């Protein structure tokens, strides 16, 4: 179980950082939003939903973290990050659209570290 717990957040961190790097490269190259970036955001969204599912399963199993309210807030906010970034990035018709996606990738990675701080049983 702890193996599964660790694999998903680690994948999210790597995926978020890779997405951020690629998106920043697109900004540097003066490119606009692309299908590739949207697809990558979709993958990130799926990974985040899987992580939310794993944590909910753990909560359903009867375990509780010290900061339960904060954790629930994270569970609600986490899956919204790629969705909000996709909408906000698509509204931008310049190189700064991909830059918004880069922020979402970095945020996803940071959220995983924060999750571990809120509830150490969530391994990274």
């Amino acid at each position, binding site marked *: 179980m702890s193996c599964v717990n660790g694999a998903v957040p680690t994948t999210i961190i790597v995926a978020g950082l890779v997405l951020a790097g690629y998106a920043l490269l697109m900004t540097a190259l003066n490119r606009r939003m*692309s299908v590739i970036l949207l697809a990558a955001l979709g993958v990130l969204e799926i990974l985040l939903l899987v992580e939310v599912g794993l944590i909910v399963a753990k909560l359903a199993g009867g375990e509780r973290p010290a900061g339960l309210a904060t954790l629930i807030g994270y569970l609600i906010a986490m899956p919204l990050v790629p969705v909000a970034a996709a909408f906000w990035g698509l509204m931008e018709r*310049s190189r700064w659209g991909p830059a918004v996606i880069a922020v979402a990738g970095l945020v996803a990675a940071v959220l995983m570290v924060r999750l571990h701080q809120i509830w150490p049983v969530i391994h990274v």
Partner: protein
Amino acid sequence: MSEPVASPEPAASHPDSTRTGPGRVLIAIYALFALSASARAGVQIATKFSDAPVAYLLSAFAAMVYVLATVTFAIGSPTARRIAVLSCSVELVGVLAVGTWSLADPASFPDATVWSGYGSGYGFVPLVLPVFGLLWLRRWTGRARTRRTIVPSAGDAGEAAADGHRRAGTDRMSG
């Protein structure tokens, strides 16, 4: 959505607004901080206010400043820009003052605020953000309405102006 084509002149749907271009990224980060700081301060004040009242009240104040900056950047009217300059200035002074205070007198801060240690708990983003915010707002004072001020890569002035109109028209149709 069109393919990832190189755009020599990134045309925006609202070129005369602080919410486009780099402002889009600033608003995304400000919104993130507004949301997380508000939620965090709310939880802290509701559940353990007596632990560190000064820190939690400062967190709530910081949250309000972030909300104000997010909203004013997104509105982008001249009045909103003036309020945004004010809130970014308050933010910069706040992070410098609280950062110094938290280092000089750690006893006052049993728990961290967003601005403790100059925002070190948040990768110093709280320190850098108001600086970029003020720099972005500066581009809009006095010489607003000139699209080329936000597009350094635009070529010859006369040609760019003529081209700009044509491209803007094309862009509206495709987008």
